[in-house]
C-alpha cells in the first residue's frame, strides 16, 4: 500500500496538470468538437532531449487510420429519404431545400466510399511519419528495418502505406515489411475471444447514456429549421435519429475539406458541442473507461502484451528498428487507458461534465496514435522509454526520476503485473459462438 501511495505521489509530482477541456476551448476550435471525426490536431512540437548519452533505438507505434468517410450510408439515407419525401409534399422550407441539395452533394461524393480513407487521411499519416523522422533522425535516417501490420480494413491498410511511403521518401534505405492478415488480428483489433468480466452497474450507465443522447440530440431545432410544419412531421421523423444523422454528417465533413461543404449551420454552437459531449460520453462508456462500466478494455490486453514482448525482444537483440501497427479508435482509446496516459484516465459518470476531465479529441481524433520511443546508452543496461499521445509527451502512472522518460524495467514490471492481475480468460468455443450470434 505504501509503495502504491508513493508511486501515486511520484506521478503527481512528475506529470503536468491534467489537460482540461473547457467550453471556451471548444467554441474557439469547433473542429475539435467533431470528436472522433476531428482532424488530427498538430502536436505541440516540443521534444524533450533525452538524458545525456541516450540514443533512440526503437519506436513502437499504434495508430488509428486517418480521416475517413462514414462507415455506412445510413445517415445519408435517413436524412435524404425523409427530406426528399417532404419536398415532394411541399413540407420543406426553402432553407430545407437548399440543405437537401447540399446533402445530396455530400452523399454523391460518398457513394461507394463507405469507410474509405479520405485524401486528408492519407496526408495525416504522411505528416505523422514525417515528424517521426524529423524528431528522431538518429534512428530513422539509418538503414533500419520497419515492420508494419494493419487491421484488415482497407482504410487502415492505406494509412499504413501512406505512413511507410513517407518514411521511404525521407530515407530510401529503410527496409519496410507490411502485412494485413487475419493472422495478426488477435492483437491489432479488440480480441473478441476474451471473456469480459460482467459489471452490474453497466446496464444503468447505458440507460443513463441513452437518456443523455436523446436529450442532447433531440432534433427539435433542426426540424424547425428545415420543415414548414414541424408539428406535421413530428410523428413521421424520429428527432433523435434525424439529429444524430445530421451531426455525424456535419462531423464527417471535417474529413473531407476538399468538398468545401459544412452542415454546422444546422446546429447552434452549443448544439454542436452537445453532439460532441454525447459521443465523448458514449466512447467513455463503450470502452469501459467510465467508473462502474464493464471492463471492455480487457479485449486490448493482447496488444499490451505484444508491445511488451516485442520491446523485450528488440532490447535483447541489440538491434534497432521501428514497429508500426494500424487499427482503430476502438483500440487507441482503451489502449491509452490501459497504459494510464493522463489524457485517458479522467472518466466519470457525470456525463454533463465529463468533457472537463476526458475529451476524445485528445485521444482518438482521426489518425490518433500512441508511440513509445525507446532510448539506450552505450555501456549501460538502463533502457528509457517515452510515451507520446498523438505525438505529445505524456505521463503514465509509474514512478520516474527523469520525466517524460521512464525506466523500462519499471514500465515493464508495472504492465506485466497489470496483465497478471487482470488474469485474462478466453471464452470457450460455445460462449464465443453465443456472443457472435448476439452481434
Amino acid at each position: 500500500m505504501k509503495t502504491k501511495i508513493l508511486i501515486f505521489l511520484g506521478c503527481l509530482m512528475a506529470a503536468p496538470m491534467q489537460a482540461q477541456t473547457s467550453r471556451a476551448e471548444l467554441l474557439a476550435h469547433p473542429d475539435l468538437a467533431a470528436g472522433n471525426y476531428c482532424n488530427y490536431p498538430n502536436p505541440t512540437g516540443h521534444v524533450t532531449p533525452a538524458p545525456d548519452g541516450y540514443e533512440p533505438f526503437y519506436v513502437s507505434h499504434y495508430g488509428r487510420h486517418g480521416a475517413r468517410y462514414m462507415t455506412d450510408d445510413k445517415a445519408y439515407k435517413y436524412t435524404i429519404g425523409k427530406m426528399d419525401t417532404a419536398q415532394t409534399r411541399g413540407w420543406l422550407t426553402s432553407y430545407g431545400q437548399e440543405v437537401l441539395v447540399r446533402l445530396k452533394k455530400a452523399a454523391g461524393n460518398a457513394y461507394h466510399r463507405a469507410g474509405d480513407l479520405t485524401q486528408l487521411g492519407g496526408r495525416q499519416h504522411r505528416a505523422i511519419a514525417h515528424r517521426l523522422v524529423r524528431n528522431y533522425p538518429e534512428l530513422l535516417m539509418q538503414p533500419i528495418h520497419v515492420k508494419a501490420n494493419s487491421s484488415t480494413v482497407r482504410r487502415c491498410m492505406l494509412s499504413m502505406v501512406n505512413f511507410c511511403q513517407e518514411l521511404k521518401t525521407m530515407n530510401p534505405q529503410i527496409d519496410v515489411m507490411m502485412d494485413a492478415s487475419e493472422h495478426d488480428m488477435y492483437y491489432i483489433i479488440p480480441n473478441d475471444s476474451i471473456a469480459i468480466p460482467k459489471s452490474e452497474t453497466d446496464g444503468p450507465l447505458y440507460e443513463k447514456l441513452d437518456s443523455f443522447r436523446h436529450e442532447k440530440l433531440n432534433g427539435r431545432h433542426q426540424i424547425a429549421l428545415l420543415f414548414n410544419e414541424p408539428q406535421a412531421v413530428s410523428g413521421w421523423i424520429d428527432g433523435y435519429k434525424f439529429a444524430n444523422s445530421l451531426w455525424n454528417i456535419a462531423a464527417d465533413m471535417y474529413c473531407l475539406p476538399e468538398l468545401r461543404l459544412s452542415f454546422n449551420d444546422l446546429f447552434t454552437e452549443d448544439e454542436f458541442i452537445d453532439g460532441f459531449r454525447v459521443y465523448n460520453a458514449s466512447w467513455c462508456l463503450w470502452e469501459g473507461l467510465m467508473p462502474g462500466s464493464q471492463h471492455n478494455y480487457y479485449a486490448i490486453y493482447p496488444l499490451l502484451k505484444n508491445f511488451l514482448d516485442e520491446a523485450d525482444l528488440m532490447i535483447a537483440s541489440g538491434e534497432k528498428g521501428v514497429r508500426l501497427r494500424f487499427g482503430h479508435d476502438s483500440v487507441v482509446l482503451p489502449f491509452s487507458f490501459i497504459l494510464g496516459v493522463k489524457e485517458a484516465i479522467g472518466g466519470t459518470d457525470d456525463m454533463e461534465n465529463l468533457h472537463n476531465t476526458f475529451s476524445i479529441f485528445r485521444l482518438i481524433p482521426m489518425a490518433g496514435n500512441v508511440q513509445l520511443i525507446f532510448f539506450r546508452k552505450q555501456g549501460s543496461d538502463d533502457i528509457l522509454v517515452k510515451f507520446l499521445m498523438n505525438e505529445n509527451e505524456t505521463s503514465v502512472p509509474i514512478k520516474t526520476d527523469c520525466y517524460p522518460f521512464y525506466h523500462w524495467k519499471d514500465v515493464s514490471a508495472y504492465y506485466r503485473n497489470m496483465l497478471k492481475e487482470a488474469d485474462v480468460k478466453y471464452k470457450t468455443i460455445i460462449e464465443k459462438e453465443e456472443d457472435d450470434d448476439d452481434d
Partner: protein
Amino acid sequence: MTTINKTVKCVLCLALSIINCQLSIIQAQTSKKEIFNDIYRTGSNYFAYPGPKQQKLTKAPEGYNPFYISHYGRHGSRYMSNNEYYVTAINKLDSAAQFGILSAKGQEVLEKLRIGYADAWHRDGDLSKLGARQHQEIAHRMYERFPELLSQPLKIDAKSSTVRRCMLSMFNFCQELQEQNPQLEITMDASKHDFRWVVEDLTIKPAETPASETYEQQRSAIFEGAHNPTRLMASLFTDVRKAEEFISGRDLMEALYNVAEDLQNVPELDIELIDVFTKEELFNMWQGYNAGWLLNTGLVPGCTPYYEQQREVLDSIVSKADQVILKGEPTVDLRFSHDSSVLPLSYLLGLKEARSGKADIPNIYKYISIDKIIPMAANIQMVFYRKEGSDDVLVKFLLNENETTIPAVKTDCAPYYHWRDLRAFYRQN
C-alpha cells in the same frame, strides 16, 4: 541515306519481322516436354512468377521516348484462398493413421501437411512473402528498363482491387518505386468506388453459346479422367480397400494437388509435396485446369465470351491513355487485380499468347497455356512512346515483362504499334 538503301532496309525489316512473328508463334506452343522440364508450371495459376525471359528489350525507333506506362498486374504469390484443401487432406490422412493404414510415404505427407497448415492458419488468400518480393522486383525492373521516364518527379496513380493481397501487392510495388526515386508522388487507393476500372464486372452475363455445353463436357472428361487416384492411394495407404471406406480418392487427389502446387508460393517453408504425384499425373490435372480457365474466360473459339466482363477495364485503360497523350505530361498508371482479370484483358488487348485458342479442347494446352499468362504476379505493361515534333504515338506490350505482339494489328515497327491502329482495333472488337 539513299532511297535504295532505305528500300533495302525496309525489306530487311519486314523479313525480320515475319521471321520474328513465325518464331513467336512457334514459341507460343506448349509441349509436354516443356512442362516436364519445369514441373511447377502444372500449378497453372499457382505458378510462381518466373521473371522475364527477355533480358534486352527492343530499342524504340529513333527519336521515340517512353512517356507513359499503363501497368495491369495480378497480386503476387499467395496462400490458398481457403484452407479447406489442407483440412480435407489432414483429416483423411490422420484418420488413416488412427486405423494404422498409413504408409511410410503417407506419414511423411501428413507431417508436411501439418507444417504447411500451421503456417497457412488464418492466412487464407494472403499475399506470401514471395508475393511481396515479386512485386518489388517487377517495380525494380520497370525502373531499370525505363529510367528516362521513371527518374522524373512523376505523379503516379495506383489503384487496386479491394482484396488485401492486391492492395499489399500495390504497396510493395510502390514502395520499391519510391525507393528508386524518392521524388515520385504516388497516390494509392482501393475503393469500391473505382472497382469498375480495376476489376472485371461479374454481373455481366454473356449469353451462352451453342458450343459451350459440348466444350464443358470435354473439359469435364479431361478433368475427371486426370483425377485417377489408384496409384496415389496405393502409395499413401497400406490397405487401400479400408481407406476407400472413408476416403474419396478423387477428392484427396484434388486437395493434394492444390496444396502441393501452392507450396511453391511459400518457399521459406522448404517443404515439397509435388513428388506425391508423377509428372504424368500433374500434366494431366493441369490440362483440366488449363481448359477450365480458357473456357471460363472465353478464349476458345465458339465458347461463351466471358472476357466481356473485362470490357469496362479495357475502355478505361484506353481512355486514360488518350487523356495522358492529350495532356502530354509523363506519368505511370498502376492497377492491381486478379488472374481472372489479367486473362480476359490479355485477350481483349489482343496479345498473341491469349489469341491462339483453337476449337480443339483435348489439345487446347498446346495453343494456350495459362501458366504463361497468369502466373502469380502476372502483368501486362503497355509502354507509350512519342517523338518530339510528331503526333505519332507508339506502344509496346510486355506480357510478364517479355515483349509480345498483337497479331490482329498490323505494324511497320514491331514490337511497337501505332496507337491510332490499336485504338481502331479496340473500338471494333
